[in-house]
């Protein structure tokens, strides 16, 4: 049971405090309700580029890193399709440094031309390092475009093209900041060796006078129910043929999310999972195969991806995956298999929650999802899933008309 205190400042900033006196550290986590899905299709990659600019100096503080490191702190940030999250961990005695830094960059950035110029280059190198200079690096660009024809999950957080990053203007940066980076769109979590009273006082002191801003009301084009099997064939200079299959699933807050999560465990979670056992060990068609889901706030994807053994044909490999899916759709999984995936989930939650940083991060995300109490009710939701529900969900998710298949061939 993770305890927390929740309150809101007058400017709309939501604050969560989680006390844990057993650690000498505190974590200050600020989540902004903006991600790549909120971008203009002609200016993709901007939310992530913007995250870099948050370290380029704020209105009263020229340099973010130096004072934090002087206080013995470390920090990082990440951008997803759904949100952007910043976190600082530092010795509890120096907690106020984190409030000072985070509140000043919420108040206003310095909007330095130099910072924009450098970070454009840095992000372009990041793009090259992860998506161009790697075998199979472009898979997700193609897969997202195949599945999402309307919803902005169509593009990656890094952006759909280097040119979008290259073309980013300081004016765009300012507009983005004042639209999204306001207290009304932010969640502050303070966790670790801190009292709720202390956190409240510091939050009022440092964040209380920041203008609220306008609450952003997200209205994104939704993806209609897919009703056709889609297929894409690609050839590239990679050593092995690879097969990818993606299936739209339930959104993060829907009951179907938990069912889909457990289904991915049945298929691809570990050495005793069905795909691993059948396709790597018994039929020897794949050297590697995984099943996972993207876990996004809006409806995400269940993905099966594998690299084929040399000499195996794509059709044969695909057929074998289909046979495993057919078995899943034909009969309920056994009590033992159901207990296994639930036990795995229980362990995963316990181990993840051991770190204060993870707890702070999870609290922010659940608050974003609209119910911070999910922090303590997730496990029950997994426990309540039945084999029958999994059977029904498997038939919906793995319906051929809900499938997106990518044959990624090694070019000879």
């Amino acid at each position, binding site marked *: 049971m993770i305890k927390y205190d929740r309150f809101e400042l007058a400017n709309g900033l939501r604050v969560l405090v989680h006390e844990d006196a057993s650690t000498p550290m505190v974590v200050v986590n600020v989540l902004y309700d903006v991600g790549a899905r909120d971008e203009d299709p002609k200016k993709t990659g901007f939310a992530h580029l913007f995250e870099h600019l948050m370290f380029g100096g704020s209105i009263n503080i020229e340099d973010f*890193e130096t004072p934090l490191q*002087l206080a*013995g702190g*470390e920090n990082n940030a990440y951008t997803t399709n759904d949100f952007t999250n910043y976190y600082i*961990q530092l010795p509890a005695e120096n907690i106020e440094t984190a409030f000072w830094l985070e509140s000043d960059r919420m108040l206003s950035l310095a909007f330095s031309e130099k910072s924009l110029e450098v970070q454009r280059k840095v*992000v372009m190198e990041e793009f090259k390092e992860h998506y161009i*200079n790697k075998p199979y690096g472009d898979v997700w660009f193609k897969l997202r475009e195949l599945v999402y024809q309307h919803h902005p999950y169509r593009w990656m957080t890094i952006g759909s093209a280097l040119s979008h990053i290259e073309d980013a203007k300081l004016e765009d940066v300012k507009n983005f900041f004042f639209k999204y980076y306001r207290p009304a769109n932010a969640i502050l979590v303070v966790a670790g060796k801190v009292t709720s009273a202390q956190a409240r006082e510091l939050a009022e002191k440092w964040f209380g006078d920041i203008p609220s801003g306008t609450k952003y009301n997200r209205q994104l084009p939704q993806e209609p129910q897919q009703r056709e099997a889609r297929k894409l064939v690609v050839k590239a200079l990679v050593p092995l043929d690879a097969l990818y299959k993606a299936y739209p699933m339930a959104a993060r807050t829907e009951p179907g999310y938990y069912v889909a999560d457990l289904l991915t465990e049945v298929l691809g979670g570990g050495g005793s999972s069905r795909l691993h056992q059948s396709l790597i060990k018994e039929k020897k068609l794949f*050297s590697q195969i995984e099943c996972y889901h993207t876990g996004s706030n809006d409806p995400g994807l269940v993905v099966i991806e594998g690299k084929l053994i040399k000499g195996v044909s794509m059709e044969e490999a695909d057929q074998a995956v289909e046979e495993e899916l057919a078995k899943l759709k034909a009969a309920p999984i056994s009590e033992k298999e159901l207990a*296994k995936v639930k036990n795995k989930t229980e362990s995963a939650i316990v181990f993840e929650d051991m770190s204060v940083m993870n707890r702070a991060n999870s609290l922010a995300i659940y608050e974003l999802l609209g119910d911070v109490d999910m922090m303590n009710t997730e496990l029950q939701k997994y426990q309540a899933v039945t084999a029958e529900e999994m059977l029904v969900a498997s038939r919906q998710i793995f319906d051929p008309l809900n499938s997106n298949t990518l044959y990624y061939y090694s070019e000879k």
Partner: protein
Amino acid sequence: MSVQTKSLLDRTVPPPIKDAIEFELILPPYQRHALSNGVEVYAIDLGNVDALMVSWIFNAGNSFETKKGVAAAVNSLLKNGTSKRSAFDINEHFEYYGAWLNRHSQHETADLTLHCLNKHVGELLPVVAELITDSVFPQEELDIYKKNAQQRLQVSLKKSDFVAGRLIDAYLYGPDHPYGQYLEATDYQELQREDLTAYYQRYFREGACRILVAGKLPADILSQLEANFGGLAIHAPEKGTALPAPAIIPAVQKKHEVVNDPNGVQGSIRIARNFPNRHHPDFQRVQVLNNVFGGFFGSRLMANIREEKGYTYGIYSYLVNNIQESALVISTEAGKEVCAPAIAEVYKEMDLLREELIDEEELQMARNFAIGTILGDLDGPFHVASRWKSILLNGLDGRYFEEGVRTIKNIGPEELREMARKYLRPEDFFELVVV
């Protein structure tokens, strides 16, 4: 109209901080126990979550092998079959109880590490014991391993960072040294089941082992370990017996350029020199120097080459965690067209550290950052266990940790410049770019 009095917040003034020097850092101790067969258990009882980790650390890394790839293959296939259970049964057993049993093979040691909830540990320890005494390495499992490992290697070899990592180790230690050697597809092809079973018999079944256990430990954990492992043929590493330390023969040529992918858009840059191990008095001093140089986000390499020039997404320097001999490595991926200026800037930063004294504020920052990191790192049983693991495997004791903290707190600019003059000379470094 009266003006409301409100205390104005001056946001230009940083809040006061408590300085690193004032933090007291204590590495929580372990309790040591010996099982009946002499195997030592290092127990760290910490934390407030009913979960634990057990590591069985064998002297079975690739330094002991006589045929390339055997150590890693044995370690990987330990859980792929006993005389009673198939690979599937074993995987299913651990997964049913929500446990992870990971295997890692390093140069000197190879370990099995279990993470699980306390309530299930009784179901899991007997099966770990079975793996240590009765793994049979089925031919079919070996065949799958060989084929799949070769396929993975084929993909990895397309990545410039992977290729660069292999080559720089070979330059530093020589291609025949366990630290410098790397596997080709043919090495996998030549693995025979007999190689594996012989290695397993000698280095696992009857091998030298230590057990590290950490978490909120159940009251009977030691008796459970005794019951499951105290009667096995494993033994404690023999006192006074040194680990293998074969001759290190670095490459003669210092500069290397490799074209791995003619279409590559980035170069993987590695600049590295040999460096003494943790027993050398300079090791912990150079760790502080390294913090200033390239050890974290606020370091000079990052500030200059990423934050000023934008040549890369990231650049770091570090001391390699090797037992026999370490290395000081600078590592980055940079745009193909900016590799040369990026490398020039690395050397410039070395020059500056050799020529000029680090100013007090920068040193204070590096110091406080290092102390803050250790403080955060002492949080929780698994972090503490991994610190102890490194100390114990390097043949050190708790004084090494205390000395490290003292060094961070007390080292001055002159001493750091002396270290830079000794260890940051460009002519001593290998330089490699793989595109």
